[in-house]
């Protein structure tokens, strides 16, 4: 999957979980500040993303995923591994 494909798939998840329009889920956007995704919704996004992309995102790692770009990069790194 390309970076854009991962972003688009992640945006769909964010839309499903938190009702945020998928096209506003861009790489530079902060989950909490820009998209209003609170920490519980973030947990749901993470679990859905784990399933969708076949990666493991431990609880300790979640706090480092501040922007959509952070999450996409993490998924790219760990899908390859």
């Amino acid at each position, binding site marked *: 999957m390309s970076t854009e494909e991962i972003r688009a798939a992640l945006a769909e998840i964010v839309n499903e979980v938190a009702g945020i329009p998928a096209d506003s889920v861009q790489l530079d956007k902060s989950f909490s500040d820009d998209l209003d995704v*609170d*920490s*519980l919704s*973030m*947990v*749901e996004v*993470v*679990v859905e993303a784990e399933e969708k992309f076949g990666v493991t995102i431990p*609880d300790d790692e*979640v706090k480092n995923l501040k922007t959509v770009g952070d999450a996409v990069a993490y998924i790219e790194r760990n899908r390859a591994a």
Partner: protein
Amino acid sequence: MSAALRTDTGAAHAAILGVGAYRPSRLVPNSEVVDAIDSSDEWIQQRSGIRTRRFATDDETIVSMSVAASQQALDAAGIDARQIDCVVVATVSHLLQTPAAATMIAHELGTEQAAAFDISAACAGFCHGVALANDMVRGGSAGYVLVIGVERLSDITDPTDRGTAFIFADGAGAVVIGPSEEPRIGPVVWGSDGEHYDHIRTADWRDVLASEKPSMPCLTMKGNEVFRWASFTMAKTAQQALDRAGITVDELDVFVPHQANNRITDAMARSLKLPESVRIARDIVDAGNTSAASVPMALRRMIDDGDARSGDKALLIAFGAGLAYAAQVVVVP
């Protein structure tokens, strides 16, 4: 000396025969808890669904609330307290290490010296109790069993803890379980995950007493970790309970999860793909999270509101500190 022992023979099946609840008198709106945690009514509602909760007064004790809930359950079942053979109490807030609250409750209710004991399975305690009672009735060690979930969590909640102060509350719920011609309590799916023993807990009394200013050991919770476990792992447990009972989500009428947080209930319902026809317990909105008491309180509420009708199939699931969990499908009495 080779004679075999005689054993008990129980009923073919067991059923919940009556449900009761007791709601403490003092209503505590979000506005009363927000200042100490620098929060807002809106944040609490968005975070948990909770609008108000109830805190017990000094007179509303673990025993008195249990007796009131039990009396309603006995009346609903048409069973006299003297017919009760065993009283099982699930609680984490009976602050007397020993003896068990159950013995005093059994006495106050006027049972004839029924067997009585408490179980420590935290928020999951009530569904553990239902499983035990089902097996007692079918195994023959008891004819009728009273299962009670009761908490005064306000006694062990730190009002300044942003992670718990707005969640926990007080109350009691009870059911009478007895013999049945038809199977009305499905197989329990239960277990524990002690690797996460620290996720929800109170402090050790010995540490508390060794500190400079000893204070009540209050509940602490790793909210996000618990949310993840409860929302997703527990949805799988709930599905297993349906499978074990031979019920599909389309045949289910009522879903009564532990009233931990409306967001957990939402996530579970989504994971389980519950159809719109399944009525979902939302007692938490004005009862808060009452740990072991929440499932029977929520079920009683649904019966009163007409959302759970006699003969309905209800999926019960409870989960919490331990981490401990239990789920079963039951038929609403």
